[in-house]
């Protein structure tokens, strides 16, 4: 198991390094300097600004300086908000996005697993078709459509829930969390149904039933653990998807989180902010993938014994 974690960790390091390098040179290759917008800037001022942001150095020196900053956890100053560092902006948005993502994931897992397990118990009956049709709708209804529709129905027509903000008015966290979580609930439902169906057809389940175990115990004690391995493995990609989804959801609901900052930075051409956010989010995603892979391997007894050197 330790060897598995170590090998995955070793694999993650080059990925993070590639992300940093590719992002750095991509951003530097972008047409137009960061100070081109302010046309009235005097040449001396521009030079001083460039010196401050180290833009007067040759490219490779800028790169190594940036790598050096990164090892100290410094993501550099923001181009657009002078006096504020990328770190400050990121950490002001991080708790908001983390909370939003947590609620969305909670919704996805609670609804998704329940619906998926429920459907798998009586395959090809109404108990299977109804939740799975709903899951199909969830997959085909992108968040940028679901969000505005929910706002329209629950916010504007019914006036039940607030339609923007985060933590200012009670209940304003409900619609964004549902919008972000719905598609993942659908995926989780499909995955847990498929996983459960596979496990429920195996010999050890038949043994459990044969020795007279009640069906609910067969499901909860024996089947669930194996049946949910695909769901756990999906959490890594889901995390990346939730982050990307937060771009849209935070824009729709005007939530001051990481996703909204990233989109704003993209429009403002705030290059250090884009660079810093990309590096930060990418590292998070890579690490989360790692955690989800390790968790899935740990749940799977076959894989576990394989990686702990044959001992089971």
């Amino acid at each position, binding site marked *: 198991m330790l060897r598995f974690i170590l090998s995955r960790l070793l694999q993650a390091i080059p990925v993070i390094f590639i992300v940093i390098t590719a992002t750095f040179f991509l951003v530097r290759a972008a047409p137009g300097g960061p100070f081109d917008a302010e046309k009235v800037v005097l040449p001396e001022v521009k030079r001083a600004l460039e010196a401050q942001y180290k833009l007067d150095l040759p490219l490779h020196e800028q790169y190594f300086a940036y790598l050096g900053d990164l090892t100290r956890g410094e993501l550099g100053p923001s181009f657009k908000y002078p006096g504020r560092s990328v770190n400050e902006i990121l950490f002001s948005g991080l708790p908001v996005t983390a909370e939003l993502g947590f609620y969305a994931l909670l919704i996805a897992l609670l609804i998704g697993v329940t619906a998926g397990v429920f459907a798998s118990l009586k395959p090809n009956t109404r108990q299977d078709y109804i939740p799975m049709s709903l899951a199909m709708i969830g997959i085909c209804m992108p968040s940028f459509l679901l969000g505005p529709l929910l706002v329209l129905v629950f916010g504007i027509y019914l006036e039940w829930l607030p339609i923007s903000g985060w933590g200012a008015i009670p209940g304003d966290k409900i619609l964004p969390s549902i919008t972000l979580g719905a598609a993942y609930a659908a995926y989780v439902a499909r995955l847990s149904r498929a996983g459960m169906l596979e496990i429920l057809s195996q010999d050890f389940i038949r043994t459990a039933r044969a020795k007279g175990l009640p069906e609910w115990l067969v499901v909860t004690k024996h089947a669930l653990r194996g049946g949910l391995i695909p769901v756990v493995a999906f959490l890594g990609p889901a995390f990346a998807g939730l*982050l990307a989804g937060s771009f849209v959801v935070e824009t729709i609901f005007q939530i001051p989180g990481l996703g909204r900052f990233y989109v704003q930075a993209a429009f403002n051409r705030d290059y250090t902010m884009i660079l810093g956010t990309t590096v930060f989010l990418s590292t998070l995603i890579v690490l989360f993938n790692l955690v989800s892979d390790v968790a899935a391997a740990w749940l799977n007894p076959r894989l576990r014994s394989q990686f702990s050197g044959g001992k089971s």
Partner: protein
Amino acid sequence: MTGATTNENTANLLADAEQGSSLWQDAWQRLKKNRMAVGGGAVLLFFVVVALLTPWLAPYAYETQNLDLGASPPSADHWLGTDVFGRDVLTQIMYGGRVSLAVGFIATAVALLIGVTWGAVAGYVGGRVDAVMMRMVDILYALPFMIFIVLLMVVFGRNVLLLFLAIGAVEWLTMARIMRAQVQSLRQQEFVEAAISLGLSPAAIIRRHVIPNALGPIIVYTTLTIPSVMLLEAFLSFLGLGIQPPQTSWGLLISYGAETMEEYPWLLIFPGLALTTTLFSLNFLGDGLRDALDVRGSKD
């Protein structure tokens, strides 16, 4: 020389006969029984035909505005209403659909081309080449591509061609994995060994034996890739990072519709309906094909 060609032809004929008679006809029979898949295919076909014939079918010209009319709800003149510039929504959706579907199909084709070639070579050559090629796929897999595409669109401007390439470049990875797994299992089969002993070149074996036999999973995965590509395009366009005016796409129309949905909900609902219906159809068709061709583990 002539003998070798005859042998090659015989081998090909045998291979064609073997898969032509049973597998594809069976699959077609199974697919026909799946009402959801057939319905999905029919709806999709309808949308594709409409998209191809849009310049002739659209009720108004793409540029036509009617500022005096402004935004109006659905009526006899404008079946799906008009937007704030008095542009016909149905016309906008039809032209937007051309772009959305084109992105879906072209980016998927890019992914298909790269992925199938990559996977076929890796699986066929095997050994160290395979290890290196699949290692590269593993590393690329771990990259947070969504963020990368946003970055690309910011850095190099919002260019449709770049969008095709960027999306295609993301989606080829799974295709390469599927193809490699197929090729590896096919290599062990007797008819491929027979073809090798008959002296067929590796390129000919891949083209004539491996690809036709790996076609099932590829078709299924392609059908399921198109909706995810279309979603990606709509996602970027919604954020303002994808398709740019004067061009339009369903994602862009949804984005405009969301801005004014309070007063003019039809501007959000109809483009949304067009996108979801298409995604539905593609997913049902893909699932149906997977069941019909009995492909397991291609996605999810």
